[in-house]
């Protein structure tokens, strides 16, 4: 490829902004659940430019178990791995955590990202939010 490149910047290549965000308010214990998923279409790429991951206990459990809120990276070739995780083990109402990340990197065609959570407690409720701002563009 010649230098300087004759390709335009990614944000000038038919770019679209995508916002994935789900607020799950005061939900009870549950197994791992993907609240949203984003997959890069064929011929496109994507930049995950900002995320927010939020957890707050809204009712005490008895007993409390592990609470997780996370982003799961799903490479096109297979496999999965957590990129950003909040784990909550305390049982006091309003306990929680709030993480904002500037970036989770770039995704190639077929790669995926999820916003997911789980609560292994017995009883009680937790509010979860996973948000990602993504720019998708021609690859």
């Amino acid at each position, binding site marked *: 490829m010649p230098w300087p490149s004759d390709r335009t910047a990614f944000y000038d290549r038919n770019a679209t902004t995508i916002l994935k965000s789900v607020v799950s*308010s005061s939900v009870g214990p549950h197994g*791992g*659940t*993907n609240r949203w998923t984003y997959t890069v279409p*064929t011929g496109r790429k994507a930049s995950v430019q900002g995320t927010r991951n939020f957890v707050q206990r809204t009712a005490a459990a008895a007993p409390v178990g592990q609470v997780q809120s996370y982003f799961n990276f799903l490479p096109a070739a297979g496999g999965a791995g957590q990129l950003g995780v909040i784990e909550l083990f305390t049982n006091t109402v309003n306990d929680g955590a709030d993480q904002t990340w500037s970036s989770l990197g770039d995704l190639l065609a077929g790669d*995926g990202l999820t916003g997911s959570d789980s609560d292994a407690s017995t009883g009680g409720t937790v509010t979860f939010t996973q948000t990602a701002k993504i720019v998708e563009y021609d690859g």
Partner: protein
Amino acid sequence: MFIRVQVIGTGTPRDPYRVPFPTYSVVAINTLGMPASAPTTPDLALPFANIPLPAMTALVEVPGEDATDALAGAPLVKVQTLDVVMSATPDQLAALHAHLDVRYAEHAGAFRPQVA
């Protein structure tokens, strides 16, 4: 586009409850009816009242580019303020799956959502 679909998965880290659409956001999900061996009690995250959600179904929002053409003829059911696809013919489902195979070629054959 809002669609009610079957939920797959067992709620474990390697096999989470999910919907086999490539891109979606959950509006409401009901994982009741999961296998008895599942590790935790069900999630009844129902942010809106009166959403008819049978066991192991979810109401999700998907991008129009993924489903609008294939499900154009499917009937819409009013749920609160949302127009929701809750049924589709075999031909419409086949068209949806074929479209997803082309639009997400890296995962051809993998995305097989079932309208519920």
